[in-house]
């Protein structure tokens, strides 16, 4: 009951939006399509739904090739970024829409439709809204209705296009948790598109990272965070310090053009350890140039002539408060868990 995408290609004129995309979604999985704006993730989702045509490759839903089917025939549920509710219909009519437009043979009785809509309204915790119009609801409420509407037709697959990006930060957080719970309850195969790596890391069973119409990496949140396959994935998934590594082993941030460099070194700010004295051979000396308190951690900028640049560090707040560091202090920096990539590109 899953999804299989095989060698999917999509062009807009000369522009190649999807370049031979292949991946699988297991039944019941919650997969995130993650990538920067314009990378093709929304195009991919819309092509799966059928509202864009593909120019090559296969889309198998429940084992069935669907590239030739109309969107109305694919039995998918789709939730839009800006809700796309029918503003001339009540909430009830919106949710019932998919059930009301079925051909007479397949249509449920009026009573059955009413039951299912009521059920869904309970599911999304909006029983009270049945007779309201979309214009009377808040953004978060509208999105829940949009979800209920998509689920009404019992789709085999649920597709969400940046479902929360049009909402306030607080509402976004709430709905994220809510979606996670909903997915656990319903266990429906789901793909959602986002450009927010936090959202992907928090919600998804599996993340597909897309860039320039190609897949950069597929993996669990842990996998893509701990073992990024490329510099792009590394920097996209979290914050990063980037250094060049010379042949003599030393690290430098701003390299001269003429210098021969062996590879690039990537380090997460929270893998940076600072101490008063030089603890290890490779420790780098520097001066704290900036301290900013950020809720659960403290953000530091350390100026180091040895690496000819700035090192960013994120220190656990409690640890930092014990240490008593201040701007201007001379400290030593240990760089742990360094990932190396070839001077220009991918993981070695």
């Amino acid at each position, binding site marked *: 009951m899953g999804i299989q995408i095989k060698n999917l290609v999509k062009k807009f004129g000369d522009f190649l939006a999807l370049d031979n995309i292949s991946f699988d979604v297991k039944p019941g999985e919650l997969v995130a399509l993650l990538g920067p704006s314009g990378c093709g993730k929304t195009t991919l989702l819309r092509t799966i739904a059928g*509202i864009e045509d593909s120019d090559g490759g296969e889309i198998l839903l429940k084992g069935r090739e669907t590239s030739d089917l109309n969107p109305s025939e694919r039995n998918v549920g789709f939730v839009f970024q800006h809700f*796309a509710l029918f503003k001339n219909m009540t909430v009830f009519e919106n949710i019932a829409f998919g059930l009301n437009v079925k051909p007479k043979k397949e249509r449920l009785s009026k009573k059955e439709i009413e039951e299912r809509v009521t059920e869904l309204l309970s599911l999304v915790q909006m029983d009270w809204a049945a007779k309201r119009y979309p214009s009377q609801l808040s953004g978060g409420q509208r999105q829940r209705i949009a979800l209920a509407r998509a689920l009404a037709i019992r789709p085999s697959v649920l597709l969400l296009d940046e479902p929360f990006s049009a909402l306030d930060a607080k509402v976004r957080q709430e709905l994220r948790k809510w979606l996670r719970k909903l997915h656990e309850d319903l266990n429906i195969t789901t793909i959602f598109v986002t450009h927010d790596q936090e959202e992907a890391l928090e919600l998804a069973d599996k993340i597909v990272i897309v860039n320039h119409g190609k897949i950069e990496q597929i993996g669990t949140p842990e996998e893509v965070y701990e073992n990024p396959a490329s510099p792009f994935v590394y920097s996209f998934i979290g914050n990063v310090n980037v250094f060049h590594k010379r042949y003599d082993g030393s690290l430098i941030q701003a390299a001269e053009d003429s210098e021969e460099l062996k590879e690039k070194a990537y380090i997460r700010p929270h893998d940076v350890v600072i101490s008063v004295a030089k603890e290890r051979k490779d420790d780098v000396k520097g001066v704290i140039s900036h301290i900013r308190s950020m809720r659960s951690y403290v953000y530091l900028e350390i100026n180091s002539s040895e690496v000819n640049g700035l090192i960013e560090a994120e220190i656990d707040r409690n640890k930092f408060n014990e240490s008593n560091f201040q701007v201007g202090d001379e400290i030593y920096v240990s760089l742990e868990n360094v990932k190396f990539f070839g001077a220009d590109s991918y993981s070695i």
Partner: protein
Amino acid sequence: MSKFFSKKTGIIPGFNLTFSYTTIYLLILLILPLIGILYTAFGNGFSSFKEIITSDRVIASYKISFMTALFAAIVNAVFGTIIAWTLVRYKFPFRKLLDALVDLPFALPTAVAGISLATLFSPEGWIGKIITPLHINAVNSQLGITIALIFIGFPFVVRNVQPVLEEFDKEVEEAAAILGANRFQVFKKVIFPNIVPSILTGFTLAFARALGEYGSVIFISGNIPFETEITPLLIMAQLDQFDYAGAAAIASALLGIALLSIFILNLIQYYNNKKFVR
């Protein structure tokens, strides 16, 4: 005057100047003539007024004006919507040209339209030649009047419906399609309800315009009393006989209907805003 502004806000000058200029302009050019007509209409007393506007020939003209205007407006509502839909949703050769030509009835003097349509549909005319053998008589008949009124009215509907269709949220249509609706269902349940107010607005504008239309109609209608004499023409006839009171009386009745239609129009806008406030 003070009920029009509670307090002068901000530092922008010129309120008194512009407000006075506009209001005096309107008083002299708009209000005064209107009062003049009403005064003349009732100049000989109310019973005389009543007698004139209820006389047979006048009532016949109301009926003719009303029916032809109504029918033309209905045809315009239907075809106007079709044209707006086609221009917005489909790509085809000459589309931009047709789009520009929609405004021709607005730009062309009514007299030119009048003589052109009259000649076109006369028994020897290009179209008249074809339809006369079929016993369809477009000249000196109410059909001819209606055709002329269709000509001058269709831009109203097209130009009102077009923007609504152009701005229509594609994602809402996509949502409906994904939920299983076929194209007819998408139109009927999702698109059409949203364009009804604009169709009604265009219809009302076309109707109001058609009621008072003169230049494009007089050549094709033949102006036969009790058959093809529209009310504006009857007013003209009274004027030619220097019966100012009579003309004014009939005009007042027509004015009343015109104002009523503005009122209905505003009502439609009001309801539209209420229901679809985002």
